[in-house]
């Protein structure tokens, strides 16, 4: 077998890899959208006045957060059919990623809401604003900028965890690389290309998030311009 990096082989498989990259981006985007909503649901569970709901919510969040995403994927993918629910690998993957990162995002939301000063609430009460009005016009506009960096970080995080989806047969980038590698019995080029594609996408994304974080800090008056 030829040693060293074979550029012609890399060039040959490039179109295939780029198509699969599109799938990875779609998977990350859809998973993130689900996670954003799931995070809101967990946040609601946390903030309802009922103590029992709070405790159950916290235990579920703790459980999901302290178990590996990989086994959660297997669990959803293999167990649901036993109860007669047949979902595609794609759907299973999206749901699991959404649930897993939703727990993290609920923490981001919570932190952001707690970042809004209590006096804002008191002022709104003094002005006789309704709770919904207070959230919509006073609290959320202030909480959102605080949440942005955390939300951005988890978008990058989800993107980097999408290769796990290949284990249940979702045809994303890593899955394509493994398939190409197995077919040609050369793993050097496909896996190296996956690494490079990930770098070229996630480093600018991470820089963008860091930039946002700086802007938010400036806007909050925490750092000098």
């Amino acid at each position, binding site marked *: 077998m030829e040693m060293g990096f074979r550029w012609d082989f890399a060039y040959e498989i490039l179109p295939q890899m780029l198509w699969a990259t599109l799938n990875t981006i779609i998977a990350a985007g859809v998973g993130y959208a689900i996670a954003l909503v799931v995070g809101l649901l967990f946040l609601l569970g946390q903030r309802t006045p009922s103590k029992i709901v709070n405790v159950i919510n916290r235990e579920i969040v703790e459980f999901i957060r302290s178990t590996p995403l990989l086994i959660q994927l297997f669990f959803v993918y293999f*167990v649901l059919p036993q109860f007669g629910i047949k979902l595609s690998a794609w759907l299973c993957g999206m749901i699991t990623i959404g649930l897993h990162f939703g727990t993290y995002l609920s923490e981001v939301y919570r932190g952001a809401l707690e970042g809004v000063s209590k006096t804002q609430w008191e002022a709104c009460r003094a002005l006789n604003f309704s709770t919904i009005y207070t959230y919509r016009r006073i609290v959320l506009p202030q909480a959102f900028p605080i949440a942005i960096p955390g939300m951005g970080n988890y978008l990058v995080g989800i993107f*980097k965890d999408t290769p*796990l989806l290949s284990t249940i047969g979702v045809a994303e980038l890593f899955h394509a690389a493994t398939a190409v590698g197995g077919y040609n019995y050369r793993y050097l080029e496909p896996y190296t290309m*996956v*690494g490079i594609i990930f770098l070229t996408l996630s480093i600018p994304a991470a820089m963008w998030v860091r930039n946002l974080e700086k802007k938010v800090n400036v806007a909050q008056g925490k750092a000098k311009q």
Partner: protein
Amino acid sequence: MSYFAFLAEHGPTLLLGTVTTIKVLVCSAILYVIISMIFGLMRLSKNPAIQGIATIYIEFFRGTSLLVQLFWVYYVLPFFGLSLEAFVAGVVALGMNFGAYGAEIVRAGILAVPKGQWEAAHALNFSPTKRIKRIIIPQIFPIILPPAANLTVELLKATALVALVTVVDLTFEAKQINSITWLSAQCFGTALLIYYFMARFALVPFLRWLEVLAARKVGR
């Protein structure tokens, strides 16, 4: 098959896998702590070459996926004549990946030590090595341990990935039992519970204890 019968038959296998998972966790935790210390300090070096190397290392390992790194170490390094055993490959990939995240924590921790401490050490004519070793490092532990604890829990979760490069850990055993018995709910459910108990009732209390210990050492 009742759940108890399942446990009686496959519990011991899962426990054996758990032992491997713990071994992977301990080895990669030691490796990642060492790497984060070295690269965290390098990141703060005044020498642009040393700082550059650290930055490239950190950005590279944080920018690519752990699974990709793991497969690269296990399947691609043999192309360069370096064949690692699955267990070693897993530990190396985990340690290097988490070391990159840990280095950022160490860097932030060192920067958080008050300037006066550096100045005082300087005024007392401590050598640069002694300054770092005796004054700065002991003080960073209470600062870096809470984020490092989070990272270590993430590490425990990430050890599940080594099953994909044929390390016979808890995840591997669960998958194996699943493919023989097709009792998916039981075997993956049990694996999830074992990971949960390890994290919640062993790892997290241990890390909290370390935090308290570190805080006491610096007199807080």
